[in-house]
């Protein structure tokens, strides 16, 4: 087990290193400079370039950046009042994390219920309802649902604030973005639980549990549900992917000052330091989710370890 985790960790660091290098190269290839303001005189531009070390040879810039990143310093933003990027990210990430966590809760509960009911009433009405919701959640993306919610709930009925409003309490503003994101969570979870439960229901030990006279509820609760919930860790990674993707769009719609918004804005103002910083941040989240999923899965299912680690 230790060897497996160690191997995964090494891969993780190589991945991170390559991603950071790749994004660094890409950000150097971006058109325009962060200081494209016409009002800047050539001399003040020179001062700025010197301050950010942009006139050093590229290899020097690269090594310096890598050393800084290794110490957790993502450099200073070129745009947002030249504040440290790490600080901006740490400031904006909690908002996104809150919306994301809330979306998981909003999505997970109906997803579990629908998935379980669909499997228990296989080919029944509830199964069709569950499957429809699961497919619908994939077909109606957050950027369609978001504006619709905004229009009806926010504008027509005026229940919740239409967009981010610094004066309203945070929970009222986070509800609609979270709901928009949660539909996709519901879809994935319901679909997964349904197929997993159907498989478990067909297992011999379920027949045995029924045969020895356990009540229906005990069979479902103790044997079926528990065994179908364990492999749910495999949706961890796709969920993370979906939430990050979703947050980039949803934060545009609801003007949420989160990490996705920071990413998009930094691209439009050529703020290399922030682009790099957010990409690295996203990638770390991604890779961590991937790692945790793999390790959890290896704990649950030792066969994976043998197949993946025993070369």
């Amino acid at each position, binding site marked *: 087990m230790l060897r497996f985790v160690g191997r995964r960790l090494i891969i993780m660091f190589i*991945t991170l290193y390559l991603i950071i290098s790749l994004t660094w190269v890409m950000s150097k290839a971006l058109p325009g400079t962060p200081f494209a303001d016409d009002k800047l005189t050539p001399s003040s531009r020179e001062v700025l370039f010197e301050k950010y070390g942009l006139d050093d040879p590229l290899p020097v810039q690269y090594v310096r950046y890598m050393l800084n990143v290794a110490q957790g310093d993502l450099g200073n933003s070129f745009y947002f009042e030249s504040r440290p990027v790490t600080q901006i990210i740490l400031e904006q990430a909690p908002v996104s994390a809150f919306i994301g966590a809330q979306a998981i809760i909003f999505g997970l509960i109906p997803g579990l219920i629908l998935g379980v009911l669909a499997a228990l009433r296989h080919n029944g009405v509830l199964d069709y309802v569950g499957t429809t919701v699961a497919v619908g959640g994939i077909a109606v993306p957050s950027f369609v649902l978001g504006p619709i919610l905004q229009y009806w709930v926010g504008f027509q009925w005026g229940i919740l604030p239409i967009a981010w409003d610094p004066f309203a309490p945070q929970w009222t503003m986070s509800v609609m973005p979270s709901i928009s994101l949660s539909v996709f969570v519901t879809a994935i979870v319901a679909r997964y639980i349904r197929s997993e439960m159907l498989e478990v229901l067909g297992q011999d030990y379920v027949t045995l549990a029924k045969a020895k006279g356990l009540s229906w509820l005990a069979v479902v609760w103790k044997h079926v549900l528990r065994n179908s919930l364990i492999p749910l860790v495999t949706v961890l990674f796709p969920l993370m992917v979906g939430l990050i993707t979703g947050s980039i769009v949803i934060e545009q719609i609801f003007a949420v000052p989160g990490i996705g918004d920071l990413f998009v804005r930094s691209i439009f103002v050529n703020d290399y330091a922030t682009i790099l910083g957010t*990409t690295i941040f996203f990638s770390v989240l991604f890779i961590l989710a991937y790692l945790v999923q793999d390790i959890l899965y290896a704990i649950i299912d030792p066969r994976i370890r043998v197949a993946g680690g025993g070369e």
Partner: protein
Amino acid sequence: MEMRDREITPELFRPLDDGTRDSEKITGPSIGFWRDSWIRLRKNRAALVSLALIVILFALAFAVGPMLAPFSASDQDLARRYQAPSGEFWFGTDEFGRDMFARMWQGMRVSLYIAFIAAGLDLIVGVTFGAISGLLGGKVDGVMQRFIEILNGIPILVVAILAMVVLDPGILTISIAIGAAGWTPMARLIRGRVIQLKDQEFTLASRSLGAGNLRLLTKHLLPNSLGLIIITLMLTIPSAIFTEAVLSFIGLGIQVPNASLGSLIDAGAGDMRFYAYLLFFPAAVFCLLMLSFNLLADGLRDALDPRMRK
């Protein structure tokens, strides 16, 4: 006792009645892979409806829509801006007075072009990569798998966004960015299938008859993975449409005056408060496309590859 003395004469034997031999016969015509799959697919109502929907939407986007639309997609006329849907403008007009009916089919064509080019890349890069990795195995496979593992660590959308920032936004560059970021699942699936197939008897037989790797791949391994490839492609298409829409939504996709479903939804969302129809039509078509491609892919999975069924 008496039995033993009995003489065995040819008269005691007569040819077997032909009728009894028929039970050994295979009745019914022999059914090939495609017919068999079609029969299975036909039983899946959701997939059939989806297939019909896709055909209808394609027909509308490529043939019927442009023929019916009295206006071109880029005709601007400020005198008729923000017209509600009517007999003249079926889906209304946008802020520059462009006919939304014509514009939407144009947008859908663009979205579909992008999806198909991305799927084509998926097919070429993903299948080749996966097949080589699986067939050669050993060190080559190890290196190629690490490469995929590293690529998987980078969020697809982030790659696509960064690529779009560096490249000029256009139909081709968007497709390439999406395709380049999204071929790894195909490579993984094909690798798994090739590894599974290459130890089977028919591969061994072909190899002992002297078939090289290339022949093995093109004649045996890939044809046997065809179902898997088709299913994966059917899932690539909606996800490429989706990624393009996200790119357009944050302003990095198709640039005006060109349109895609994503950019139309984006524009519609901006004007939604007063002109909800601008959001409604493109969003509805988008959802229908996603829905039917996903359902069809599900149906195809059951039909083409019953073993993959969970």
